[in-house]
């Protein structure tokens, strides 16, 4: 399965945020999306998630010879600040989620406790109000929902930034487990995390996406090279090709 973006454009007033953006994302890979502040990462995520409409272009899910438009339900969005109804317990929220999405979940929600076990959420914590959950636990609950609905594309907006090392490690394992069935696009500013977790790195600048060559990820001066690329990209949007050239 592939997510294919063709000539996607999005402007806010005079400002063109996504300009003729084309890219192909494959299932089984985690894509690290890099870009400077204001480059348009959140706009791209919001377009993919159906939160905002693109001005033009196509976003398709291609599965072998079959192809269809990307729909809202195909995308799961993990926010950096997970928002969950705090007056519910984690257990109540998951049960509510299963109840109202029963058609999509197809029996995967029959054993709620098994799902909590998978996310390493202790028995007592499941029945605490979400209000009293830590950031990490809220994020785990958010991720648990994707185990249930299995969206084709999962967008992660800086999800590991404020986790302690244990939770971050658990989340990384979980993401690696998830990638075999999904297309994961991971937005981050932390290069170390991106190289550690992602299979591909892409840079968003001047409204278009540029893939960084896989070889660059293994080089010792990887960070310097990526910083240089980001700097060059923001100085000149037309240097897209140099990202490839620089790695060859």
């Amino acid at each position, binding site marked *: 399965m592939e997510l294919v973006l063709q000539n996607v454009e999005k402007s806010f007033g005079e400002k063109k945020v996504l300009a003729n953006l084309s890219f192909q994302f494959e299932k089984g890979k985690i894509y690290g999306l890099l870009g400077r502040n204001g480059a348009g990462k959140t706009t791209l995520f919001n377009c993919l998630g159906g939160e905002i409409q693109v001005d033009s272009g196509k976003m398709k899910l291609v599965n072998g010879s079959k192809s269809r438009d990307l729909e809202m339900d195909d995308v799961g969005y993990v926010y950096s600040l997970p928002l969950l109804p705090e007056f519910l317990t984690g257990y109540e929220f998951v049960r*509510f989620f299963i109840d109202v999405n029963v058609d*999509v979940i197809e029996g995967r929600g029959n054993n709620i406790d098994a799902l909590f076990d998978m996310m390493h959420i202790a028995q007592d914590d499941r029945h605490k109000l979400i209000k009293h959950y830590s950031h990490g636990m809220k994020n785990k609950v958010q991720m648990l929902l994707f185990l249930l609905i299995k969206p084709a594309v999962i967008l992660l907006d800086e999800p590991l930034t404020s986790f302690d090392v244990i939770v971050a490690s658990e989340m990384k394992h979980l993401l690696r487990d998830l990638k075999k069935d999904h297309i994961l696009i991971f937005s981050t500013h932390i290069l170390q995390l991106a190289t550690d977790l992602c299979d591909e790195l892409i840079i968003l600048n001047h409204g278009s996406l540029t893939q960084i060559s896989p070889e660059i990820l293994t080089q010792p001066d990887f960070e310097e090279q990526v910083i240089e690329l980001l700097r060059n990209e923001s100085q000149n949007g037309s240097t897209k090709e140099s990202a490839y050239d620089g790695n060859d």
Partner: protein
Amino acid sequence: MTGMISTISRIWQLQMITLVNRLIYFTQKLPFVGHLISEQTYAAFQTKRTIGAIAVILLFLAGLLESLLYFGGMLALPMLLWTKNLNSTEHFTLFLHMYFCISGVMAGITSAKVLESTKMKYTSVRLMRIIPTKFVRAALFYRYTTFFFYQGIAITLVSVLFKFSMTHALLIVGMMTFWRVICEFLHLALFKWRGIVLVQKIWATSLSMLLALTLAYLPFTILNFPLFGSVILDQPWLMTLVSLSGVICGYVLLKHTDFTSAVRAVTKHADPLLNPEIRIADLQQRLVESKEQDLRRPSSSNLHVNEQCTLEKKGYEKLHEIFVTRHTALLRAPFQRRLLAIMIIGILLPLLVLIFKDYLSLDSIERFSPLIIMVMLNLTVGSQICKALFYHVDKPLMRYPFYRQHAKQHFWLRFRSILSINLKLGSCLAAVVSVSILVLTGGQDIRLLLPIWVISIALAVFFSVHHLLLYYVIQPYTTELETNSPLFSLINSLISLGFVVAMFLGPPLWGLTAVIMVLTVAYLSSAVLLVTKYSVNHFRVK
């Protein structure tokens, strides 16, 4: 002096730039013309300078207008309206008394530049790093120069109107200017002595306002009330003493006073006077916050048991039930407040009817029956419940597409809840009005009772749909619970407009009832279509 003038000029520039930037920002938001104003407009220095110069002139005129309004509206107008056969000396005496009470006593306590908390002071000192002492010295100099100038012009006009000595009047304004400088000094002395910022003590300012205004206007109601204000202001020796003290205080303030601690005390970021947005957001959030006792209902240790208890309900129904159970106090409060208001109406209305029985008739009640629209608008619950729903339930869930797609399901659940509360309130109001009608007619004429009940019930349904439908279709709340939608305000103002039209036309009660019923049915039927059509895109966090 040069330093002071340059600080004043810097404050002006800052004020102008802020004003012009704000003007550009809001013009950009206007429909049709907004797109003509590009981002580059902020860089048009020459234009901004010209607009700034115009704004400075307008600010001067506004200051003058303020003084003219004060002298005209609060001092001259009462004398014109409420006094007869007074000569110019008597007018002057009365004028001085009022001027003493309002400008000397009230404003002396409630206003002090040195300790006032303004956004400009905050921006200048905290953000633009103007030295606090320099800022306050410049502000004081500017304030009391313009004070004399503006009030001098205003009192000259009043003296022409009432034919009293212009020179004498100007001397009084000069003395008042010096007195207010002394007040600044005293405010600062109190702050330095006890750390008290008197202008921020609501009890002190309210009490002084109440007393000063009462004393100022009492001579209009009580004959021979001693006009002590004029006696004080018209003493030559006191005038000399105040002027000399004012000069000394002014000199000390402008030359030998460090204002750093005073300015720091009133320019804290969290100060609600400086950041009303924060205060409003805090207040809104406090209004919809869950009560701990509700969240422990049943106790948090028993949450697991509670989860099992509600097993028979599923999905949105269960979500709603848990929300109601864990926010009982929050949801009950608006109902109880309104019930209390109806009870008070229930006591007062029949009493008033009894007292004014001879002047009232069923026809006059029928003529003013459109009032029930405004009463029900304010007595029905809706907006506060919608805010609570937004804050606790919808804000996190609106991000999920499925939640927006299923909007119709939770809309009806919530509609039923709100409707049941509003029907109770509508019935209580109808009962209260019915009692008053029965008191008026001695139980003899009951023809208005049925339409009163029908219209109350219809309005209860109407406003239940109204609040919830607007919430689902427009979703006007920001994450800070501010209402940020012109369309929302416009539609709400249509209700008030409808009321004004109804009051103007004065239709028979049955006619009004029929119109409300038709509108309610139409509103209710359109709700289904509107929620289905617009919620997917509009029921989201702005």
